[in-house]
């Protein structure tokens, strides 16, 4: 009998084996359930409806129409005159025409209330990359970023995994509609200090994910003051800025800076992307807009790891510099999202469910706390499982967003057709009726 000598297994790094990717959490478990049994309008009407993916599919037709009428965008024109240069272009500055188009688009979204300099735009392959990149630049391993809860579950992975930076939550609750207060920020800062973590910045998402609401002007002023006071950075993730239902309700940190004459601006950095507002997450287009020269230079160099395809830059430069297209898109998209939002709120209300008053985003923040057996995380997860397995809806439990109050859920409404949304609302209605009877 031969003796088997076991070869020592060749090892991997801590990063590779770490669980910080978080894919074992309920947020992602629901996706697995959906993948295994996805709803389809005709072929699988009893499948799981995906309401956990913040994707915008309501305005695809506008994109299609543009591309149909402007073949030069996707083919470099007849004979492909610009192709050679484009194919070889891997300069981390990015196409000037594309940066200009992005700057203009960002200005349009803010109703011209803020100006953006194309030379301060750094391009990345998605906002995911932009957020990670900024974290590498603003914080060292072991340092901390303060983030208001509830927040996008992906931050745990994107901001911490390879960077080894910590997140310290700023707790917000329903007593004031989850708004960020100076007291909460100070408490988080003290909490970090007591753990001997050096706070390097505060990261806000405005409009908020998962709340689906914009941050008010007064709160933005307080947040900026706090950052100045502690001498830390302020990252404003504004990827849903074009998805506010009414253009006047969104106030960007850029506007606050404008009114302050750009004093203290060198600590402010804005993240933007076309994944939500333009419904193009597959294109992988993100930006960092920084008022800090050193950050711009460093981010640009670091963007070598996450450049946007030159072909995609060319296509979007054409599309976004077409004023007629961009203005019409922003306006129409807003209207359709607003309509969807009204539809879901009405439907939920009919079923006896209240939501946080929202004004932006691709989702609503639903309050199911009255249904919980006990006001605990465990009860919330139990309820989530029931909704996933019996009602066959994948929604995101508040605990995966680190919400300190159990019972809240994020429900996406823009990644499906109106008919599918109707079906989902019917299922919820039925579920609530059943519970009332029992």
């Amino acid at each position, binding site marked *: 009998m031969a003796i088997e000598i076991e*070869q020592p*297994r*060749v*090892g991997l*790094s*801590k*990063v*590779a084996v*770490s669980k*910080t990717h*978080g894919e074992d959490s309920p947020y992602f478990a629901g996706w697995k359930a959906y993948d295994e049994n996805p709803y389809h309008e005709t072929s699988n009407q009893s499948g799981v409806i995906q309401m956990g993916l913040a994707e915008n*599919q309501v305005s*695809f037709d506008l994109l*299609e129409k543009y*591309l*149909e009428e402007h*073949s030069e965008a*996707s*083919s*470099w024109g007849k004979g492909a005159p610009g192709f050679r240069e484009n*194919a*070889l272009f*891997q300069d981390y500055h990015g196409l000037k025409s594309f940066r200009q188009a992005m700057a203009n688009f960002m200005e349009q979204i803010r109703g011209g209330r803020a100006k953006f300099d194309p030379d301060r735009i750094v391009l990345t*392959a998605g906002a995911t*990359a932009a957020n990670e990149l900024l974290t*590498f630049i*603003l*914080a*060292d*391993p*072991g*340092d901390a970023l303060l983030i208001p809860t509830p927040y996008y579950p992906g931050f*745990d992975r*994107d901001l*911490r995994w*390879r960077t*080894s930076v*910590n997140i*310290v939550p700023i707790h917000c609750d329903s007593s004031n509609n989850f708004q960020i207060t100076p007291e909460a920020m100070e408490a988080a800062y003290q909490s970090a200090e007591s*753990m*001997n973590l*050096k706070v390097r910045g505060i990261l806000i998402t405005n409009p908020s994910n998962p709340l689906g609401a914009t941050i008010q002007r007064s709160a933005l002023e307080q947040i900026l003051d706090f950052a100045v006071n*502690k*001498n*830390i950075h302020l990252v404003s993730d504004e990827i849903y800025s074009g998805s506010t239902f009414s253009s006047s309700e969104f106030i960007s940190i850029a506007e606050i800076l404008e009114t302050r004459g750009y004093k203290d601006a*060198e600590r402010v950095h804005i993240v933007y992307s076309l994944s939500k507002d333009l419904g193009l*997450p*597959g294109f*992988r*287009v993100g930006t960092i807009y920084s008022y*800090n020269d050193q950050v711009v230079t*460093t981010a640009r160099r*670091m963007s070598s*790891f*996450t*450049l946007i*395809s*030159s*072909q*995609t830059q060319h296509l979007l430069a054409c599309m976004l510099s077409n004023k007629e297209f961009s203005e019409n898109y922003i306006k129409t998209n807003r209207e359709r999202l607003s309509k969807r939002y009204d539809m879901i709120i009405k439907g939920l209300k009919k079923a006896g469910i209240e939501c946080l008053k929202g004004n932006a985003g691709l989702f609503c923040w639903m309050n199911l706390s009255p249904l919980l057996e006990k006001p605990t995380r465990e009860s919330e997860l139990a309820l989530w499982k029931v909704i996933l397995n019996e009602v066959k809806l994948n929604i995101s439990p508040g605990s995966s967003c680190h919400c300190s109050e159990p019972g809240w859920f994020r429900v996406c409404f823009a990644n499906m057709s109106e008919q599918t949304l109707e079906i989902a609302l019917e299922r919820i209605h039925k579920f609530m009726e059943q519970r009332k009877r029992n």
Partner: protein
Amino acid sequence: MTQTRYYRTRSPEPEKEKTGGGGGTAMRVIVPLQGVVQGRGGLVLGSIIPCALFYFLQFYLKRNRDDPDDKNESNSTSQNPTIRSPSSEHLTELPGLTRSLSRALLSPRNSGPVSISARVSGIVKGGDSPYYMGLKRVKEDPYDELDNPNGVIQLGLAENKLSLDLVKDWLAENAREAILGNGKELSVSGIAPYQPFDGLMEFKVAVAGFMSQVMENAVSFNPSQMVLTAGATPAIEILSFCLADTGNAFLVPTPYYPGFDRDVKWRTGVEIIHVPCRSAENFHLSIAALDRSFNQAKKRGLKVRGVIISNPSNPVGNLLNRETLYSLLDFAREKNIHIISNEILAGSTHGNEEFVSMAEIVDQEDTDRKRVHIVYGLSKDLSLPGFRVGVIYTFNEDVLAAARKLSRFSATSAPTQRLLISMLSDTKFVRTFITTNRERLQRMYVQLVAGLEKMGIKSIKSSGGFYCWADMSGFISSYSEKGEVELWDKLLNIGKVNVTPGSCCHCIEPGWFRFCFATLTEKDIPVVMERIQKVLKPVN
């Protein structure tokens, strides 16, 4: 005790999930500190003394930081959040510290302007090497036969323009349908929504087929073992993150591609150990040299996690033969380390030598497959660097799983994938392209080498890549890096020719230069030779 206080304070997890471990954090401090002491005094003294110094420094700083009335900001590296005086001194990095050490200490804080992280603040000043300066000069004053005949001719960029016309012609006819329709009706929903971050399966299939064609069908690639990334640059970085911890090291034969210093080391905190190759062996990799470097690293307390080879190599253009690859695998097995094989120029071979992929070597050797990882991309072989398509190909499921998740930070763009699926599936086009491209590369290579030889400049025989590796040591004023850079400067500013000096590639012998020929036309070659001749004044 300060020591335990350090461990407790550096590794807390405010969130419920635990990441790495406190031990790892401690190692991140100890290892670079050992590096500072250069291992003298051995492992024990080499770690205790710097550690003790470090802990005392920490203790001293912490005491200062705790004092709320302390307005003394200029000389300490402590953070004092209440200081807002605009005239407060800028804090600079403590002098004499290596980047890894400064990262381990409390980051120096500007109590005036808000500071960026220590891990990047040293890099901001980068970009001064001849490699980058040369590229900049060409950008500012590019040669054009008609519009700018006195401009700088680019021989410093390993890009291939020789066969772009073939790609362009294909695209002019097929692009629009390729991106949106593939013959069906226009559909944005095919490219707009979220796709798997590691690439569309259809695209992986197309790329796997391309890789196989490029390597003369000697090996077939399984699309399920692929992770696609936005270029080969993040592919290398992701592998570096997956295979090594901060403070660990990879062995890399020199001379090597200057970009590795950024891709392998920058954000990962991983080190590169140079394994010198010499002209006496035509700069071929020697396993004995690998072994020596491995042992030296061990003595310094550096843990080697793998070897990174480039095949065809850059800047020399060597191919690694079958025997060397087998020996390399033996070496990796013996030391229980990984092999990263960067094969992005596999389709850009010219001449008669056989290209052998690492994938071919492990095909038969089952047990060692888990330690082999191949990097590929379309930037070189298909001349599409702008489109950002890189590949990690691995036999190791754990690496595959981790790399898949990490690809979210560097994903390829969906419309680009769609376009290339069509292009790469056109096997007739691919076949024509590969053959024609090789012929054109061969022709240019021969002409360039012959031209240099006429001036007494000999090159190493190269079988791949867009460049030749030439010996100009006979023309440098002093046999040193200084002499070499002086010659580079003359070539750039007097001759108006941008070439890459060997020191940028960490070549151990001075006087070697890389001349890229694939951005030139045949008409440019005599012009280039003339300009070089102007500069040369043989020494002795």
